[in-house]
């Protein structure tokens, strides 16, 4: 035992003690959340995703070169931590080094550590270059990030200096296993220090390294670097399937006195873990259509603001004095922030630590709508229409089937009466029923179904809005009213298979009706048409000599992972050329109509549909293909406002196929 032992005990004890105390507060803050958290099932899949994304850095590596830099730093730290552990242990009790693993293995360990120290330094070097020279907008300025980079870089420098002086002082000291440290030792040799000075400097830099590690331990709980502790568990606890449903509220439960989240503590503990995991990398906002058109919402700031709200209310939360917790809506998270979201889910797809942004926004909206009655004025009309006419637009429920009047399409009631064996139910949706532009899409799709010889029916006037707009806006009660009525109707006819041309209806019926007893096999018309083509039931034969670009609907793509079928449909058109916009597939940009935004005014910043149409126009395509009635409206409006309607047509994939096929 040397003087080092008591000193280390004292310093490390204080540092770990204080750090532990700070971590315990974070855990208590998390546990004090009152919102319900759904149980975490499928442990096997969770372990697999944690291995792939933590050890394998899969999601991080989606963006490069920074992903590679992060992977180098991450793996470097895993390896170097073994050395740091050895440092700690041997400082306490010198013989307790790791040499017991055998000379060769120990040399291998030293070699790895040396190489990874260089990797980390290189990674940090790139990170600094990116942060200070390239300066991506999403990264922004952050004192915290600068401190973390300084911490990390100085740790590596301390390791190299420690090893360098040790090599000089203790020669021989595994220098052949440490190429980088050896090179540094050669440079340090030029200083011509005595052996004992070199040894003392080696010990000095060991202490420098240990002090920085201990300082880091104290610093981490209040830093974005907290992700090194939280991101792993958060990855394990992530929402597994791409197709996720919004959490239902049980309105039968009379003990519930509040709907949605008014305060941070109304959210669940998993939400707090989300904030702890956030690295402020900005990938979420890089793709956010709201942020990219100057709306006040950025998913990154939303998470940071919620975290800061939680920290600001620390005392009240820890003492469980929930009355004293200040509201979520404040000068940072304004109502405009919450209403700007199109629920396109680009943020969640981009997030390397699997933060769920949309559920938080939905919960906050639910509170604004159902508890505070605060929502954009124009939404009142939408709710009223859905309540009285079961459609967001003010059209009579009795006119719902008018689009099909001359098409001799059976209603379910008629099909049941004459005992027709149906292949599929065609779910029309409100846009297909009432919007003249989208009626044409439905007529084209019905014509395709007929050409394929399929027996299908519609619900006719028995169909109601799925409730999706109400749900996304936050009116869960109205949603459930409509959803339950529809499920009752569908189940009464014993419907098994449904096809719809609306991705919003598709998502709702497929993923969200399950919670209310509606289990059906649901297809989007792109999937259905692709299958009819591949089965040879329809054959696009008429040449369509055009360049076509396809716009991904968020609720088809990001919410349901359907990217290839609509493209396959377009590719089946004779002599058609396909081009992609610069944002496509899961990196696609929303048209601006999701999350109920279809029925809201867009008063702040540039219009999202214009920004998207500009991307479409850049491709010089003559046809913008859509597979969603809302996208259709937004893109058509965008093309018109760019005065390009004479050169660029917006067409649904069903229309493209219908004009190219004959009976």
């Amino acid at each position, binding site marked *: 035992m040397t003087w080092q032992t008591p000193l280390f005990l004292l310093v490390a004890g204080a540092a770990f003690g204080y750090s532990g105390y700070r971590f315990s507060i974070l855990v208590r803050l998390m546990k004090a959340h009152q919102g319900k958290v759904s149980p975490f099932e499928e442990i096997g899949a969770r372990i697999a995703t944690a291995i792939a994304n933590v050890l394998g850095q899969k999601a991080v590596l989606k963006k490069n070169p920074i992903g590679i830099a992060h992977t180098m730093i991450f793996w470097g730290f895993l390896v170097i931590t073994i050395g740091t552990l050895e440092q700690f242990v041997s400082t306490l009790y010198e013989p307790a080094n790791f040499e017991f693993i055998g000379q060769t293995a120990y040399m291998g360990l030293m070699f790895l550590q040396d190489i990874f120290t260089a990797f980390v330094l290189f990674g940090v070097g790139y990170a600094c270059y990116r942060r200070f020279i390239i300066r991506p907008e999403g990264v922004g300025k952050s004192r915290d990030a600068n401190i973390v980079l300084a911490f990390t870089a100085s740790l590596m420098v301390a390791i190299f200096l420690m090893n360098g002086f040790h090599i000089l002082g203790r020669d021989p000291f595994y220098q052949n296993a440490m190429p980088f440290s050896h090179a540094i030792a050669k440079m340090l040799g030029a200083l011509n220090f005595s052996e004992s000075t070199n040894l003392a400097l080696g010990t000095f830099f060991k202490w420098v390294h240990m002090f920085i590690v201990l300082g880091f331990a104290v610093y981490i709980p209040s830093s974005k670097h907290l992700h090194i502790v939280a991101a792993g568990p958060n990855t394990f606890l992530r929402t597994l399937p791409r197709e996720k449903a919004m959490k239902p509220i049980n309105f039968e439960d009379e003990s519930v006195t509040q709907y949605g989240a008014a305060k941070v503590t109304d959210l669940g503990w998993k939400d707090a873990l989300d904030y702890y995991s956030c690295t402020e990398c900005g990938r979420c906002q890089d793709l956010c259509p709201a942020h990219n058109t100057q709306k006040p919402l950025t998913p990154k700031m939303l998470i940071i603001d919620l975290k800061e709200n939680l920290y600001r209310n620390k005392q009240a939360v820890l003492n469980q004095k929930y009355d004293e917790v200040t509201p979520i809506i404040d000068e940072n998270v304004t109502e405009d922030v919450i209403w700007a979201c199109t629920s396109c889910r680009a943020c969640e797809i981009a997030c390397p630590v699997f933060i769920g942004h949309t559920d938080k926004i939905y919960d906050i909206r639910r509170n604004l709508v159902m508890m505070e009655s605060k929502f954009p004025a*124009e939404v009142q*009309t*939408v709710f*009223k*229409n859905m309540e*009285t*006419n079961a459609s967001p*637009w*003010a*059209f*009579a429920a009795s006119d719902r089937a008018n689009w099909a009047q001359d098409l001799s399409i059976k209603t379910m009631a008629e099909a049941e009466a004459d005992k027709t064996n149906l292949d599929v139910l065609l779910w029309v949706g409100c*846009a297909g029923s*009432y*919007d*003249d*532009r989208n009626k044409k899409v439905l007529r084209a799709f019905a014509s395709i179904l007929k050409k394929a010889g399929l027996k299908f029916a519609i619900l006719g006037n028995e169909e109601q809005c799925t409730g999706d707009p109400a749900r996304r806006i936050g009116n869960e009660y109205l949603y459930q009213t409509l959803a339950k009525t529809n499920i009752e109707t569908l189940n009464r006819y014993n419907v098994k298979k449904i096809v719809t041309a609306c991705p919003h209806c598709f998502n709702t019926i497929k993923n969200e009706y399950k919670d209310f007893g509606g289990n059906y096999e649901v297809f989007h018309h792109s999937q259905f048409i692709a299958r009819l083509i591949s089965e040879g039931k329809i054959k696009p034969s008429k040449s369509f000599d055009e360049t076509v670009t396809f716009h991904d609907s968020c609720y088809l793509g990001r919410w349901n992972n359907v990217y290839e079928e609509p493209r396959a449909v377009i590719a089946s058109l004779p002599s058609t050329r396909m081009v992609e916009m610069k944002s496509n597939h899961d990196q696609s940009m929303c048209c601006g109509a999701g999350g109920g935004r279809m*029925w*809201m*005014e867009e*008063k702040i910043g540039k*219009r999202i549909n214009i920004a998207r149409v500009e991307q479409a126009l850049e491709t010089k395509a003559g046809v913008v293909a859509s597979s969603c009635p809302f996208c259709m*409206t937004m893109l058509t*409006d965008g093309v*018109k*406002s760019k005065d390009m309607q004479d050169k660029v047509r917006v067409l649904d994939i069903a229309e493209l196929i219908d004009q190219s096929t004959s009976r």
Partner: protein
Amino acid sequence: MAKVLVVAEHRDGRLKKSTFELIGASSAAGNETHAVLLGDGVADLAKELGTYGAGKVHVAQGPALKFYTAEAYSKVVSDLAKSLGSEIVLASHTPTGRDFMPRVAAKLGVGLASDCTQLAFEGSSIKVRRPIYSGKATAEVEFVGAGPRLATVRPNALGAPKADASKAAEVINITPDVGTLKTKVLEVVKGQSARPDVTEASIVISGGRSLKSAENFKLLEDLADTVGAAVGASRAAVDAGFRPHRDQVGQTGKVVSPSLYMAFGISGAIQHLAGMRTSKTIVAINTDAEAPIFQLADYGVVGDLFALVPLIKEEFKKIKEH
């Protein structure tokens, strides 16, 4: 025959047409029709009320009434209704009427039928009809219990009577007691337009993106001024910055239901149709014969609006001269 009190509404020194509708309907039914004018420096308006059939006009003036406030109006109107023993109190279903009439009803402890489209005077009482379920059905409402019957009537629902210059009203100046007001209006900051609001006008002339610029809307404004119409716009025209948002007709703008709606260069996206499809007569002018607006229109012209607007304006002028 009933004792009717009509609350006159005015703005910028001019009485609103909807007030004449109420007075006309009441006096035509042979009622003892009183009108009350509230304001400061509004005595000159009393005479005009007489020409539409008001027997007596009570003029309540004072600095506290210079600007409209729900507090002062409801106090003065309820006091006057009590002292006159009015059996029926009518106001227009305008933002003002919707604001103060419920308070009058509360002060008097009686019922109020709002947004009425038909009135039937029956002795000292009335029966009214009011649309329900977005106009898909009409409810007939009668009053129960004692006390004055209160109703607000939708503008343009009754039809304005012709003024008769030979008729004159007895003008009675009253000293209003507004009590202690909790609020005071310091100033009214106006929007720019002198034309009627799209939701109140009986004729609305709307334009779309095809007008190509804010300046070209001048064409529609001139046309509107010949017939006292309001100028509306489609969402596309508003988005393009041709018109302010308050003029926007549609799902996310104003919902209008005028006697005549003229759509110039509006294709008729669902968003727009949702805001004007209940108009009595719809005229559409568009270059695209396939435009969905023609499905809804009673009269349609496939043609260039820039050529047609001046012609229509000339025709409007001729009709007005007759």
